[in-house]
């Protein structure tokens, strides 16, 4: 027996986790900016690579089990690495390589002791997410889950001297904990009264339909709070902008996927008999979330809030896929369930790369200009061409355009919708075309949002004439080498996932085999790696590589033709002023202006407050704000109710000892009467 043969992938994965913990500690002790950015973050990226490799090697293999003698006596930590865990560990590893490399450059100006703390929290955050994916009992799962919530809370409040950041952090922590309670309750129901909280015993519990549904609903609520499913999404647009950009990238790209993992683990693995209406519920919620998210993204003026809302949209799309998979699974249409599930998993992976890339891109913009408000940016493609190119890849991918990766998962999901006629339920048959239409609408709106995002930041002219944000336009510099490496890693991921989907789907197949007992790979491999054919080649096929090559060849051919037959003379001149006496940079659309049509059309959903200048104002002033109606409809009533109840409870509190003695006495009497 050599060491290599006894070393299971789960041990390697655990090794990577230990590496992260040690690196975090080292950062905390060193407190030296130079050492942390030069060595610790790149080493963290190496550990991430190790984790990704371990996960990849185990995707097709048997599940590994490990028991750690940690935790409480008699209650050790159980760990397990099966295909589902391995898939999400791969996502965590692969995406965090880019984010860690980027961080090595991004935090170079941060002061040492603060950076030491951040580095510690950062690596704890990574390690806890890995443990969430590997946990095989509710105990370790909840410990890791809470560690993840707490470490990310501290990361969000890195700029804790800003009141708004503290507020955002509190909101995040609050909703995370409401969610955690629901998850805990869900595990409590699922173990079926045996007192054994390992996932293995939950699989054997075989709950009846009522309790299974209760578990599913609790889990959907609990994990939904983390994922940002309507109406629990309110923390996302607050917390993501508040956090430093690599942290936002990590939270949006990876942490939201822990919730997706949880929903999948509970509904497909731990509960054995899915009901069709669970799927219909998840599908509806997912679509509402997607539409809501994208509509709000379209009217944002802060670039990171815009991306946060876009994350809500993407989580909605993933949930739609999961819902569809549950519906098919409950009707034993396993091939279709595998298709919908593949789409959801693929989109999860895509989203980690695209959104990671874009959040990091906003980080660089923020670093270079000190400005998050879209209305004060513009024209950065001239000063930051390398960043602009890399972000363009993410923008096009997130807009769901072929041949990049966002399109592949949308294509798969739409195929799943198209193949669904003939479900033995007339409501579902009516729901599904409407759902497909809503999904198409959300996808198209994402294009609108991304044009706004990219166009307002990078194109045009700087809106403050020669100033972008807080810097002179000419002083803005492009990204450094570490940032560029991190961004390039993620951008390459977007391109490769888009152009070679079949290779990746062959790996996802192990997960769908585990969860629904059917794969896409058999049909995908029939016609070779070039063709993505989910069911049969006659029904649908898509070859992104051919499309990519043809567009490139088309462009080159056109370029060649024009070069050959055209004299190629070119002059530069001022932009045409359309006969107006003056053209200034402020005449371009601001972010608000670009979102105006959406605000107009979907007025109903937005709470809009506006101050419009009158005709005789000496200093015309315009101010507009778009707020989330769900705040006033859902959260404020709850807050008011809580206030009212606390006020009533407060009346009991007089601070006089005899009153309290009386309470105890009455309680005692009541208890005695009750026991009798």
């Amino acid at each position, binding site marked *: 027996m050599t060491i290599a043969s006894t070393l299971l992938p789960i041990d390697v994965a655990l090794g990577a986790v230990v590496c992260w913990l040690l690196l975090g500690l080292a950062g905390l002790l060193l407190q030296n900016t130079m050492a942390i950015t030069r060595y610790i973050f790149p080493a963290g990226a190496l550990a991430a690579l190790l984790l990704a490799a371990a996960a990849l090697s185990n995707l097709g293999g048997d599940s590994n089990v490990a028991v750690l003698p940690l935790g409480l006596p008699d209650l050790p930590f159980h760990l397990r690495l099966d295909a589902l865990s391995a898939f999400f560990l791969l996502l965590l590893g692969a995406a965090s390589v880019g984010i860690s490399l980027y961080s090595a450059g991004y935090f170079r100006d941060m002061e040492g002791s603060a950076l030491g703390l951040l580095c510690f929290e950062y690596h704890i955050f990574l390690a806890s997410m890995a443990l969430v994916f590997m946990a095989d009992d509710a105990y370790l799962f909840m410990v890791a889950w809470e560690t993840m919530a707490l470490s990310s809370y501290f990361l969000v409040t890195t700029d804790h001297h800003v009141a708004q950041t503290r507020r955002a952090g509190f909101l995040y922590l609050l909703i995370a904990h409401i969610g955690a309670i629901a998850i805990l309750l869900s595990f409590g129901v699922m173990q079926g009264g045996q007192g054994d909280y390992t996932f293995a015993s939950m699989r054997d519990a075989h709950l009846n339909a009522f309790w299974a549904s209760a578990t599913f609903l609790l889990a959907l609520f609990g994990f939904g709070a983390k994922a940002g499913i309507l109406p629990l999404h309110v923390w996302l647009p607050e917390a993501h902008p508040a956090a430093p950009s690599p942290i936002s990238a990590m939270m949006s790209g990876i942490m939201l996927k822990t919730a997706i993992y949880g929903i999948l683990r509970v509904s497909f693995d731990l509960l054995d008999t899915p009901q069709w209406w669970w799927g219909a519920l998840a599908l509806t919620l997912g679509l509402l979330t997607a539409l809501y998210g994208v509509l709000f993204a379209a009217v944002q003026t802060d670039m990171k809030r815009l991306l946060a809302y876009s994350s809500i949209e993407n989580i909605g799309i993933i949930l739609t896929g999961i819902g569809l998979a549950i519906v098919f699974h409950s009707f034993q249409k396993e091939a279709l369930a595998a298709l919908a599930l593949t789409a959801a998993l693929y989109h999860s992976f895509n989203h980690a790369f695209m959104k990671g890339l874009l959040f990091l891109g906003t980080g660089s913009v923020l670093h270079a200009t000190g400005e998050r408000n879209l209305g004060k940016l513009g*024209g950065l*493609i*001239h000063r930051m061409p390398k960043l*602009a190119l890399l972000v363009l890849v993410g923008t096009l991918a997130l*807009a*769901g*355009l*072929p041949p990049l990766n966002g*399109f592949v998962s949308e*294509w798969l999901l*739409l195929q799943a919708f*198209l193949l669904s*006629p003939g479900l033995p339920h007339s409501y579902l*048959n*009516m729901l*599904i*075309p*409407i759902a*497909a*239409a809503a999904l*198409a*609408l959300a996808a*198209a709106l994402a*294009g609108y949002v*991304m*044009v706004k995002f*990219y*166009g*307002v930041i990078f*194109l045009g*002219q700087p809106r403050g004439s020669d100033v972008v944000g807080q810097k002179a336009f000419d002083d803005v510099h492009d990204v450094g080498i570490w940032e560029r490496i991190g961004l390039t890693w993620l951008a390459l991921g977007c391109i490769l996932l888009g152009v070679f989907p079949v290779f990746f789907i062959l790996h996802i197949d192990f997960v769908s085999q585990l969860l629904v007992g059917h794969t896409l790979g058999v049909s995908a491999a029939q016609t070779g790696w070039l*063709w993505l054919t989910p069911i049969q080649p*006659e029904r*649908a*096929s*898509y*070859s992104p590589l*051919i*499309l990519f090559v043809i567009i490139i060849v*088309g*462009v080159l*051919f*056109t*370029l060649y033709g*024009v070069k050959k037959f055209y*004299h190629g*003379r070119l*002059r530069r*001149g001022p*932009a*045409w002023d*359309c006969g107006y006496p003056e*053209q200034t940079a402020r005449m*371009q659309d601001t972010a608000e*202006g*670009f979102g*105006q*049509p*959406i605000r*107009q059309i979907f007025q109903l959903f937005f709470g809009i407050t506006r101050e419009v200048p009158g005709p005789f104002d000496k200093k015309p002033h315009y101010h507009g704000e778009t707020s989330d109606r769900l705040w006033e409809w859902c959260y404020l009533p709850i807050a008011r109710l809580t206030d009212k109840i606390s006020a009533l409870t407060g009346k009991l509190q007089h601070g006089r000892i005899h009153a309290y003695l009386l309470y105890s006495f009455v309680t005692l009497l009541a208890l005695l009467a009750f026991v009798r």
Partner: protein
Amino acid sequence: MNSLLLQLIQDALVVLIAPLLLGWVNQCRAWLQNRSGAGVLQPYRNLIKLFHKDAVLANNASPLFRATPYILFASMWLAASLVPVIATDLPLSQAVDVIALVGIFALARVFISLAAMDVGTSFGTMGARREMLVGFLAEPALLMVFFTAATISHSTSLVTIVETLAHKQFVIYPSLAFAAIAFVMVMLAENARIPVDNPATHLELTMIHEAMILEYSARHLALIEWASALKLLAYFTIACALFMPWGIAEVGNLAALPVALLALFIKLLLGGAGLALLETVTAKMRIFRVPEFMGTAFLLAVLGMLIHFLLGS
């Protein structure tokens, strides 16, 4: 080998006849307006003229601005050569199905909008905003039209759709009727025709497409104009393929090609005249009404799909 050759023939055919279709539509419009018109070959003359001019770029135009005409042209060419025009024997159609076709249209739309924002003039950004406004409703409507056809033929491949619709016995699908109306509305909007946009005017507060390309000149403008012509042709041939697929040659049936070519020309002649007539009898809409128009198209398309799911026809 034959199919590859056919693909190349189609590629060459679409790129050459696209300006002709545009010229025909303009000529019909001129006749309907009691003008003599510039002749059907005018778009070719325009292209030649533009290709001979010196290009002028705005001072702060970025590389994206210069690359966009090529990307636009290539993607529209690809779109037009995907649709079975005279034969269903197209290898490319396997690589790009209808969903990907919608994706290619979206790719072109996003690039032209980004390019319009690039120079940073008020008209450019306004055009980009309006284009995306039209697009975000047109894209799902188009997708739903395709879905209706795809659920009838159990395939998203355009070739299979055409083969199913053309070579089955003649059946009238009520869902396709809804889809057809929605498609015409989408086509008007996406090709910047009246009532959504007016291809013949400049510098009006209502313009969309022309506002986006104000900064382009010479070869870049020529490529964009050509791409627009290709897009119009692509929409026409999609309409032919979905709603009147008769005459398109089957796989391996080379003898049917001349008939197919003739059928194509007749369809395009009639379709072009129909478009001109539609444009002459309707008035340009206020821009605020465009979302309603597009929303109607979207709802009609969804209705078509629903009818198919509920009635199974």
